[in-house]
């Protein structure tokens, strides 16, 4: 198992490097890097002397390859650079935002798993039945909803009309503030999980080994408990992992809508303010989280599925 984890880590490392390089290249070719970054719309001109001084301070005068070398060396020590705007270390700025994003992602995935997986399961038990038809119509609708619009509608209904929940913000960090953004973000993975679970159950229901189980004289409920659940779980778990990553990416919109102080709104604000080191750092951290989660899921799958370790 340990060697599996190590191998998986080694596979991930080049991807991280490639992403870091890509992000660096993308942002080092932006015209007017720093000077424009200090003005909101990138158009007003700063005093030439100030510009030179600042370019020197941030090492922007060096040739690109030198800057890239420095950048990678920095990354190796978990130094993500300094914010153009606040002069704070980017790592500190991001660290503050990590927990709210994690909260949001976990809450929305829990919601998606808790509703989506059982829904897909029930739907698959009677394919073509009314529960199946309704839930699959619901699923395709859920996948088609723009998250920020759903969030807006939820906000309107539950916060403004009914007044049950706060409309936006992080507040004191209590769960009341978390509910609406988590639901808005969780509906799409919920829909996808319901579809995947249904497909997985249907596939396994027709598998030969389930026929063997029935030939053993097993009741349907035992077939489900002894043979279906575990096998479905492996397939569903992979989807959960991928969706977890997608949710972190999609959180940008929902965080922005609900003024949630997470990584996503940090990223959008930094893009608007052209605070490049923070943009680079947030994207890199988001990718790292995404890869980390998928790795965890792979390991989890390997624990459940004995075939994976050896291949």
């Amino acid at each position, binding site marked *: 198992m340990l060697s599996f984890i190590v191998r998986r880590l080694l596979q991930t490392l080049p*991807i991280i490097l490639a992403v870091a390089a890509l992000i660096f290249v993308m942002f080092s070719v932006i015209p007017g890097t720093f000077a424009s970054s200090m003005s909101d719309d990138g158009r007003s001109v700063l005093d030439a002397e100030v510009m030179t001084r600042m370019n020197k301070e941030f090492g922007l005068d060096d040739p690109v390859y030198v800057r890239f070398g420095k950048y990678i060396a920095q990354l190796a020590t978990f130094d993500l650079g300094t914010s153009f705007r606040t002069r704070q270390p980017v790592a500190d700025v991001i660290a503050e935002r990590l927990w709210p994003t994690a909260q949001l992602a976990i809450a929305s995935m829990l919601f998606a798993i808790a509703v989506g997986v059982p829904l897909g399961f029930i739907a698959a038990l009677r394919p073509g039945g009314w529960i199946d038809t309704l839930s699959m119509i619901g699923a395709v609708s859920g996948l088609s909803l723009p998250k*920020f619009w759903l969030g*807006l509608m939820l906000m309107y209904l539950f916060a403004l009309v009914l007044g049950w929940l706060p409309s936006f913000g992080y507040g004191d960090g209590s769960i009341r503030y978390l509910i609406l953004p988590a639901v808005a973000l969780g509906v799409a993975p919920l829909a996808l999980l319901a579809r995947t679970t249904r497909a997985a159950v249907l596939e396994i229901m027709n598998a030969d080994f389930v026929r063997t189980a029935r030939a053993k004289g097993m009741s349907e409920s035992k077939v489900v408990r002894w043979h279906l659940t575990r096998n479905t779980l492996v397939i569903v778990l992979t989807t959960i992992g991928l969706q977890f990553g997608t949710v972190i*990416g999609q959180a940008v919109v929902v965080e922005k809508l609900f003024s949630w102080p997470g990584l996503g709104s940090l990223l959008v604000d930094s893009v608007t303010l052209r605070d490049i080191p923070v*943009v680079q750092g947030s994207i890199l951290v988001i990718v790292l989280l*995404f890869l980390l989660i998928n790795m965890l899921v792979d390991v989890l799958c390997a624990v459940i599925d004995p075939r994976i370790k050896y291949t």
Partner: protein
Amino acid sequence: MKLRANLLIGGVLFAGVVIAGIFAPWLAHTDPVMDANLMYAEEPPGQEFWFGTDAQGRDIYSRVLYGARISLTVGIVSQLINTVIGVCLGLSAGYWGGWWDDFVNGLTNMMLAIPSLIFALAIMAILNPGLTSLLIALGLTNWSFTCRLARASALSLKSQGYVQAAKVLGYGDLRIMLTQLLPNMLGPIIVIGTLGMGGAVLAEAALSFLGLGIRPPYPSWGSMLSDARDQITTAPWISIFPGLAIFMTVLGLNLLGDGLRDILDPQARARRA
């Protein structure tokens, strides 16, 4: 039964959006950008303004119609770019193999590691907001599934007898790829493309909502929603109609994609794409 319902409803929804987009100048009541009139700001839906008016007094119905043009353009063009990139890379990688295959594989893995909305957002960050930038940002960031599929089909097809026969006959690589391999993987690629279009429409709306896509005053559904939050208490219709339009368009494309999948890609269920 369900198969037909998918295609029918999806087709009708999508056709509706296409018609709205094409005939927007005739169907619209006012000019979507110029006809602002603060006299009529935040009018609720009614006889004169079917969907109400926004904070600048513009007719939301007309703006929603014109918004279809932007969504469709972005959806279709960016997905075409993705498909072309994905097919070119995947097909050649699967067919040629070797270092090129390794390279494409690495590239695909990297693409899959970056959430596509984040990638598109990063590209929008270095380009200026606008339609062209959107097409580039969304066209470059969502080809990995097409690429994987094209690569896998090319790998399995190239050992088939008729492809070998074409090789023996001295057909060039390009000719074999285009005439022997491509037609045989078209079905699933069309399916992915249709679903991808829906994704692109959603991504455009999201980026415009964040102020990084189409900028106001141009009537993109996403940008219409971006200032709607502030008026949601006083004028919820400003938010409702553009959102419904996005939902209907994407739902149409998703249903169409699911329906096409049942017809064109019978193995899809096994692959669980």
